[in-house]
């Protein structure tokens, strides 16, 4: 299967001095869910911003490497052109338009869509996924709860009918029950609409639970990638990302290995 998105050896510099991505590569295949995991400051959001064309807005710059979407180079395109190509980012931190109503937020999500009838059908679909939004339709988005805001930003993305949806930490600050619900819906969107999803998360457990492939990044680079089965059975991943200590007998030996492995993650 050909890749939908291909990022090759990406290098990103902020303010001309801060090197944040140091040769990052990843691929997303059509219709799949891919997880991008890593701890705080690893450069996950920067990766998404580079793909969406947001870097110039933050004085960031791609200094090396390239990004291809459906075989076309994205580097240098303005954000609104990238959205028109079917690539939609749901930014970190639930960026609803607080002064706009739920309805108006959704209208913005469908900004690139032309057919009113189609928008209405998509809207009905959103309400099936998130019935609460229908009840809150005329309310200011700034007054929604955190969970409702997360549902709103995902619905906004659905209305843009992207071929690839990039979600930046959708679980951030939500109660575990709600996180589970949101992830189920992300999976449903992928299955029902065929939307490919690039899922940035700190919650590795949840993210790997719905993905087919995963990348783990540290310090601006991918340090490990593989199918989800492979990652879930990897001892490093279990220990550092899934919070499972291993139960090996040889404690002292393990400590040495632990140190080496730890070093690998942080180097």
């Amino acid at each position, binding site marked *: 299967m050909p890749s939908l998105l291909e990022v090759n050896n990406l290098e990103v510099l902020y303010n001309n001095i801060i090197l944040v991505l140091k040769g990052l590569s990843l691929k997303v295949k059509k219709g799949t869910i891919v997880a991008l995991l890593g701890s705080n400051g690893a450069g996950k959001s920067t990766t998404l911003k580079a793909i969406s064309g*947001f870097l110039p807005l933050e004085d960031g710059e791609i200094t090396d490497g390239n990004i291809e979407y459906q075989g076309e180079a994205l580097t240098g395109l303005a*954000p609104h052109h990238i959205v028109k190509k079917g690539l939609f980012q749901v930014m970190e931190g639930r960026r*609803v*338009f*607080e002064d706009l109503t739920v309805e108006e937020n959704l209208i*913005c999500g469908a*900004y690139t869509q032309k057919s009113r009838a189609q928008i209405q059908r998509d809207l009905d679909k959103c309400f099936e996924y998130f019935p609460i939004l229908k009840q809150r339709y005329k309310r200011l988005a*700034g007054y929604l709860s955190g969970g409702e805001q997360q549902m709103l930003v995902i619905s906004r993305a659905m209305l*843009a009918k992207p071929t690839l949806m990039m979600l930046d930490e959708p679980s951030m600050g939500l109660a575990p029950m709600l996180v589970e619900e949101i992830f189920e819906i992300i999976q449903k969107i992928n299955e029902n609409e065929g939307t490919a999803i690039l899922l940035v998360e700190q919650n590795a457990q949840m993210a790997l639970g719905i993905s087919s492939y995963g990348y783990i990044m540290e310090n601006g680079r991918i340090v490990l990638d593989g199918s989800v089965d492979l990652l879930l059975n990897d001892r490093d991943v279990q220990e550092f990302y899934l919070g499972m200590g291993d139960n090996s007998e040889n404690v002292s030996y393990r400590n040495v290995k632990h140190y080496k492995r730890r070093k690998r993650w942080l180097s």
Partner: protein
Amino acid sequence: MDIFLQLIVSGFLVGGIYALIALGFVLIYKATNIINFATGEFMMIGAYIFYSLSVYLKLSPFIGIPLVIVAAALLGALVERLILRHMLGQPNISIIMVTIGLSSILLGIAEIIWGSSFRSFPALFPRKAIIIGEIVLRSNLFYGFVTAMVVVVVFLLVFKYAKVGVAMRATANDQIAAFSMGINVKSMFTISWAFGAIAASLGGIIIGNIGGVQPTLGHIGLKIFPIVILGGLDSIMGAVIGGLLVGILENLAGGYLDPYFHGGVKDLAPFVVLIIILLIKPYGLFGTKEIERL
């Protein structure tokens, strides 16, 4: 009592016209956070273009006004594209200086083209005064008010319901999120300058129709300033209510106090009220603070 009512009602009508010009400020500020100190000059240029179209080319207002709208939109859009686009990210004070410079340039251009003498407009509206009970209203003022309100309502509807209006409000609310929706944020800036210039120039035609036009017509822009601050800079409703309030106040102050002070109170009153209101409500009557979430 009759004088009081007369002053209130005519002040109200003047205020409605101020509101339209105030909208010229607000439309630009809301999207770009730029206070356009050349709003008054946009107004003046609009009035002169209309004057030329109707006096020199003898065009009917039904052709002249649409042409002024097109010209104003072009002027606003060009100013944004050629000047302010390149000021993105510069300190506020530089941007303010640029708009002040722009106002002087437009004033100079108007003097070169039209000279500095006073010109009066051909009649736009029926001349017959409007009489309601004891109150007598000058027809130019009355119809000017009605026209201004129609334009304000059209802008309100566009902002509330049209896709471009929603996108402009989204841009004003969170630029980066607006980018992520596929909204071309920079073109929203251009459109808001075009809209601001249209509002100001239509206000210019209405004012020119009441009192004639000369290059210094734009100085009314200074009077509009307290209105927008009063209304909260980024609120269309605020501009309307601020405009009406200042119109009434100014008229009352002029009617009752000027006779005792050799005039001048009329122009002072709006600023006094501005200071008092800002002391109580620093964001203006309708300005948005961050929405506080619990």
